[in-house]
């Protein structure tokens, strides 16, 4: 493509003398069209970044519930996957076979397999590829048999094909895995071994050992302050022409011609970009608000928390039922403790892994995210809570507000007891002394029962909404 565009440019140079005949106004229009094209590329890269983050987070939600076919569909046809020491599987079909070998498909009673996708460092490149470093923090259990903590780091690659982002390379470097009963200072398990029943297509391409050994997972990027290399294919040759810029020039050219006929074209292009940029700002605002929700919840700031809801908003936590409107929401929060008073009480509710979709009109948004909580009162065994949110946000008079807050809990587990013998599967449910305005909208049971919280989105690659394999 580079050669191709160069040839075009040379050919066009023959006509350069005719360009000089343009009036000052025409040249101004052309200059603005150029700026518009530059801005469009910038906005495209920001959209790509969000899409790549969503993709990895969606992968995480699928694999938590063993939705192997859905997860495999997120990969490019020639993609590779390498998890820990299990070797490399090549191609979408082999990836799906491999994933299916990891456990029976679909959510399973007695199985906890939460893999939190955290701390993305994403770089999107102009040639339609991207790289991402992530942390994975996992909680795995088989009821009555085992339970583990795990940690790892991904260095992944993504590729945009026909306008859709897919996983090109998924590489999880395992860091630590320990049985809950021991802790990582007592028992640290080695890397997984390649399967004998379903051997990998290629051996592991890097040698390292799990903790207690030390291994620094290679970074795809240089130091962001002192370095220049963001890991892209063109990093050493900034300014060279690649496919996307070549295409960009063609579209600028057609834009420029239209403007000459009709000054409306520039305006239409700017309005389109205003819309797309607005949706990007909306996504940032919704993620920010969900995060602030977590900070207020963590310190029993009930009035602050109530304030971020829409006046007709609802809260529905742990099958306690629906509380509608500020007064009821505020009353619901009393169930979790006294406002602002937390002597000896820990109530952290970490919010992360958001998958956000803003409606085309920019007035509503859906958010799936997860919570991991560290709770308890000093003197008693602390508890972990895991759960999924499926929330709805609305924009009123330009301000985003929480319209529907729904928490589907996965477990409440003692810090020392863990999940192995956790038998309580019923969520807290309705409190008669402080009842909801409406009954729960969704019935669910927690681990060790199996439950798949419904998704607000379809598979971003296939469009499939099948949740059962």
């Amino acid at each position, binding site marked *: 493509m580079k050669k191709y565009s160069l040839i075009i440019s040379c050919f066009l140079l023959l006509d350069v003398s005719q360009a000089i005949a343009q009036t000052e106004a025409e040249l101004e229009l052309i200059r603005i069209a150029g700026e518009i094209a530059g801005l469009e590329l910038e906005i495209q890269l920001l959209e790509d970044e969000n899409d790549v983050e969503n993709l990895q987070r969606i992968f995480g939600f699928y694999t938590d519930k063993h939705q192997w076919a859905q997860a495999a569909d997120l990969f490019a046809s020639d993609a590779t996957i390498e998890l820990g020491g299990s070797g490399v599987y090549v191609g979408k079909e082999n990836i799906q076979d491999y994933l299916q070998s990891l456990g029976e498909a679909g959510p399973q009673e007695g199985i906890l397999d939460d893999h939190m996708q955290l701390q993305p460092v994403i770089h999107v490149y102009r040639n339609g590829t991207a790289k991402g470093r992530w942390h994975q923090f996992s909680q795995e259990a088989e009821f009555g048999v085992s339970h583990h903590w795990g940690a790892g780091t991904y260095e992944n690659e993504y590729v945009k094909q026909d306008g859709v982002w897919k996983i090109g390379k998924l590489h999880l470097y395992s860091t630590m895995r320990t049985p809950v009963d021991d802790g990582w200072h007592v028992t640290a398990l080695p890397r997984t071994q390649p399967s004998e029943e379903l051997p990998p297509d290629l051996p592991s391409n890097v040698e390292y050992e799990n903790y207690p050994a030390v291994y620094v997972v290679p970074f795809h990027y240089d130091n962001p302050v002192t370095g220049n290399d963001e890991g892209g294919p063109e990093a050493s040759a900034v300014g060279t022409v690649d496919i996307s810029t070549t295409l960009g020039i063609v579209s600028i050219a057609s834009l420029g011609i239209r403007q000459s006929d009709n000054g409306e074209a520039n305006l239409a292009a700017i309005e389109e970009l205003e819309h797309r940029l607005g949706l990007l700002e909306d996504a940032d605002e919704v993620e920010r608000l969900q995060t602030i929700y977590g900070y207020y919840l963590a310190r029993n700031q009930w009035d602050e928390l109530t304030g971020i809801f829409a006046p007709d908003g609802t809260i529905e936590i742990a099958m306690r039922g629906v509380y509608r409107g500020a007064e009821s929401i505020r009353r619901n929060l009393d169930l*979790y403790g006294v406002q602002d008073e937390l002597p000896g009480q820990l109530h952290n509710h970490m919010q992360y892994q958001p998958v956000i979709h803003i409606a085309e009109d920019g007035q509503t948004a859906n958010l799936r995210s997860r919570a991991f909580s560290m*709770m308890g009162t000093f003197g008693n065994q602390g508890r972990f809570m895991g759960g999924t949110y499926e929330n709805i946000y609305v924009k009123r008079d330009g301000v985003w507000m929480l319209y529907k807050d729904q928490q589907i809990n996965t477990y409440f587990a003692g810090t020392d007891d863990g999940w192995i013998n956790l038998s309580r599967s019923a969520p807290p449910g309705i409190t008669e002394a402080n009842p909801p305005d409406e009954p729960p909208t969704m019935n669910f049971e927690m681990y060790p029962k199996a439950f798949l919280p419904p998704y607000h989105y379809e598979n971003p690659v296939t469009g499939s909404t099948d949740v059962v394999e």
Partner: protein
Amino acid sequence: MMRFIPTTFYLTALTLLVACSDQSAMPEAGSELVADKAIELSELQARLNALQARAGRIKDSNDIKRLQRAYGYYLDEALWDELVDLFTEDATVEYARDGLYRGKNRIRDYLYVLGGGQQGLNEGQLNEHYQLMPVITLAEDGLSAKGRWRAIILNGDFGEVAMWGEGPYENEYVKQEGVWKISKVRWYQTILVPYEGGWGLNEDVNKGIYVSSEFPPDVSQTDDFGSWPETFLPPFHFDNPVGRYESPTSGTEGEGL
């Protein structure tokens, strides 16, 4: 750091392409046309400028998130030199109740002391610091920003001790010559407790004091927060984005989740 093609490049290419693509589409220049378009052009340019500024702010916010997350990955591995390079020359760092260290050199020395005099982890050390929950607020001029974050910590020495840790940051960032840097790290330690018994049965292992007794800070702890099981609310750099609700009562005794 360059991600976009310089405008001049576009302009040249554009001029070339437009010039030969369809000459018949170019109207003859007339004074009337120029006058009409002059008004339109200034409006277009103004809207375009506003859009460019807004896009720049989103990119700034994303850059700051990348920066803080990069900080976390370096901290995980005790890569102090890489970590210190993320700071401005006059940056400050204050962890837990250890006091404040000012300037890159002092911060570097402090981090090396924290790391036992070396860079990188020893075999058996675990130092995971997950950087979660960013709330980034960019200044109006786009040249500085504040960010609240929360860290979950998995800390340990094999054969000795494992610990859970957690606490929020209130950090500051500045943009210097187009590059975002960390100008202030303030991390509040909510808990650092042994794995066995967790926060339910253990007080904070170090009361938030790390190495300040052997390596005194430039300024002693700048606030009066204590350590677990004491609790506190580090101030927010941002107001409620929607607006606080004023409840008529302070509530009743809760039953907990």
